[in-house]
């Protein structure tokens, strides 16, 4: 193999392996990966890590710092090696490769810098809406979780059917439930233009819109290693330009726009005369170092100073479909004043300020209770997950969402504290309850309640029992609302707390006097 092919092949191999791992994180339903492993896999994702750093902090949130340092040394390697949206575009470009050759495009920096400024200002002052709409990791996450996952589930379910013919239960059927179709559509609409651009224009999204690409582009202007063209050897054959998916090689001036170069290394071995090199600045072999002509701001000397200062630092771092309940429809509408944010969110506002709607929690949640919202949080919270108690309820013994959330929007909770975190409180509507309307026993709500905040108390003369809620020990897990069989309105529902509270512990009663059941007694019959 040509020596200059090595970086390209290394990048391809690394990026593909890592990409597949990230896809798997988002589509796996079997809990194959431990939360801690997932945390490490997503560690270098720029935006989540950045948000995590400022919202939580700690060693696991410094991924973006490492990425920054890597960028300072190697250029935008994040974009080519780690960014899942980048790899999606590369794959799309590759599949459609026969169609076209890339061309140099004149940079229109004001577009991307304006976007970066607006997104950053909005994120700091207003909210993360624009950031999560444009962040490449979150865009990719939503694509995997909402568009790839159902296909994966479908393949699994097809296999279940096939295995069923042979009486095998080796695989289990998995439901893809609770996801609003509007969210599926929106996810598709947001990824479609990026894919479309990738077909014709390679990494156009990364260099025109992506706020992460733009920001890392600024940093990569001063990176140690850069791609450069040796003017003395270059014959201006444009071979390198035709393989540059960033369109950042300008043959006329024989320069490479470092701020747009995603360090894919495809150009290196394209040159018959080895005129391209990826080398440290100031190295003699490249007689014409990278120019920032197209956008140029940072000069050479200031850059050296910058690196001297940074040197030491750099060196040290390395469904509902089955709701076929007959009976009269209920009439009283639930008064849901607030949506319910997941346990670990602390408060709705805090959650909405940090969550980038990557939907990792949605795909990991074992009960499907976490679902992307539509307008529950308002327009600027669309797709940020909420607890959908018609889709499922929060498993009492589970803390998974907080353990996997890469942004810190959902904080990891210890099981004991999660079991007391009050997301909301149950509200009972007697006029909807079938014990009241039909005079028959039901109690599905109390049955599912893990703290017995929903208790059955005597009702009427027929020996019936009806729910009664003790709000002090209710944690708002939604088991009651999920289980309640009345339609269209439930007889019990959760009204969210805007700030999560700590519920009282259920009173531990004295152990019962052993009655007839004592092992030493005689049989009571």
């Amino acid at each position, binding site marked *: 193999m040509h020596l200059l092919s090595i970086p390209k092949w290394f990048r391809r191999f690394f990026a593909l392996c890592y990409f597949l791992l990230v896809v798997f994180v988002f589509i796996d339903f079997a809990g194959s990966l431990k939360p801690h492993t997932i945390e490490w896999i997503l560690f270098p994702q720029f935006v989540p890590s950045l948000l995590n750093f400022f919202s939580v902090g700690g060693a696991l949130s410094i991924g973006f710092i490492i990425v920054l340092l890597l960028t300072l040394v190697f250029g935008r390697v994040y974009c080519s090696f780690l960014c899942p949206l980048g790899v999606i575009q590369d794959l799309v470009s590759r599949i459609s490769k026969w169609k076209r050759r890339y061309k140099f495009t004149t940079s229109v920096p004001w577009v991307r810098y304006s976007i970066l400024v607006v997104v950053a200002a909005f994120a700091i002052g207003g909210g993360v809406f624009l950031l999560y709409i444009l962040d490449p990791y979150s865009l990719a996450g939503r694509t995997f979780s909402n568009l790839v996952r159902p296909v994966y589930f479908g393949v699994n*379910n097809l296999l*279940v059917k096939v295995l069923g013919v042979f009486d095998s239960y080796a695989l*289990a059927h998995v439901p893809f439930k609770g996801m609003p179709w509007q969210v599926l559509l929106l996810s598709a609409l947001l990824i479609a233009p990026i894919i479309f651009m990738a077909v014709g224009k390679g990494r156009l999204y990364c260099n025109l819109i992506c706020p992460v690409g733009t920001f890392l582009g600024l940093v990569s202007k001063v990176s140690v290693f850069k791609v450069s063209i040796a003017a003395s050897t270059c014959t201006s054959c444009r071979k390198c330009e035709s393989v540059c998916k960033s369109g950042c090689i300008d043959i006329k001036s024989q320069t490479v726009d470092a701020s747009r170069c995603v360090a894919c290394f495809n150009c290196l071995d394209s040159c018959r005369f080895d005129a391209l090199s990826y080398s440290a600045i100031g190295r003699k072999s490249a007689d014409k170092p990278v120019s920032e002509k197209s956008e140029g701001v940072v000069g050479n000397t200031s850059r050296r100073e910058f690196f001297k200062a940074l040197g030491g630092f750099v060196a040290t771092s390395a469904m509902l479909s089955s709701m076929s309940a007959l009976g009269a429809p209920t009439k009283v509408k639930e008064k849901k004043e607030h949506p319910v944010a997941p346990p670990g969110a602390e408060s709705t506002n805090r959650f909405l300020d940090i969550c980038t709607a990557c939907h990792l929690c949605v795909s990991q949640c074992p009960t499907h209770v976490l679902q992307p919202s539509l307008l529950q949080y308002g327009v600027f919270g669309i797709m940020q997950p909420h607890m959908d108690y018609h889709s499922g309820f929060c498993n*009492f*013994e*589970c803390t998974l969402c907080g353990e996997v959330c890469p942004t810190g929007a959902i904080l990891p909770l210890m099981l004991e504290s999660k079991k007391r975190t009050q997301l909301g409180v149950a509200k009972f509507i007697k006029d909807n309850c079938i014990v009241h309307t039909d005079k028959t*026993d039901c109690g599905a709500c109390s*049955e599912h309640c893990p703290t017995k905040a929903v208790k059955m108390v005597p009702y009427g003369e027929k020996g019936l029992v009806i729910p009664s809620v003790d709000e002090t020990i209710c944690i708002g897990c939604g088991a009651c609302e999920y289980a309640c069989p009345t339609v269209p309105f439930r007889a019990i529902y959760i009204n969210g707390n805007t700030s999560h509270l700590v519920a009282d512990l259920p009173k531990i*009663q004295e152990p019962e006097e052993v009655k007839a059941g004592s092992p030493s007694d005689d*049989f009571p019959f």
Partner: protein
Amino acid sequence: MKRREFLKKGLSAGLFTGAFLNMGGLDKIVAGNTSSANANKPIDLVAVKGGAPAAMFDKAIAAMGGMQKFVKKGQKVVIKPNIGWDVPPENGGNTNPELVKRIVEQCFAAGAASVMVFDNTCDAWNRCYENSGIEKSAKQAGAKVIPGNTENYYKEVDIPNGKRLTKAKVHEAILGADVFINVPVLKHHSSAKVTISLKNLMGAVWDRRFWHRNDLHQCIADFATYCKPTLNVVDAYRVMTRNGPRGVSLADVVEMQSLILSTDMVAADAAAAKIFGVEPTDIPHIKMAHELGVGNMNLGELNIERIKM
């Protein structure tokens, strides 16, 4: 591979049969001490107390005439324990895993071709299967632990004798099995008052909401007219006496070390209700099932074998 598995199964089945025959012999001696059943009449119900779950089952099934009376060579068996909740065995929320394991072993010892175990759980199914300890113990004994988590596994059946419940979607494993063993755990239940054999069958169907919506007790009784398990084994080793069916703390659990075995669900539930401390007549679904002719709740009319260990 297949041959090896076949040999393995055959071998273990042989071993268990041997062990089982031995136990049968011993039991006859022990049973003689406490027996109160009429030896000339078939036994309707066996009640055991004072032993470990698996040991109590061995005694009970031996008294009943041995597992081979119910499981014939080459038959497909399905076992339906209560695996409803994501709680560990000591909480008494699910059937005892040791008991399930021994039943599976006994089935294979009697020559069962396959044994499947499942439940339509309330909490997340795979977490229930795991935390209950049932998945592990049943698999150790050679059973297939199969899912029941989506509607795809259920097929609609008619319930001609049902008053409110006339149709239900039943798990395909039950529909395809030769032998159905119902293994409930005795627990307090917030709405059904107690949950035993009859109530445990709610986990054999898909749409539970319908039952809750349309007179829970009647639906429980109605379903029993359609689905009669070959055997009912009531686990009353650890009994949740309040805050059921999920339980709030270990203080809700009393160790009663008992077990009931019967082919008659109503009789089994009547006896278990007594152990729990309530009269069978106070439990509407037991009474309704009795009235529908599913079984007999009048324990005085039954030939009962009582064994104390």
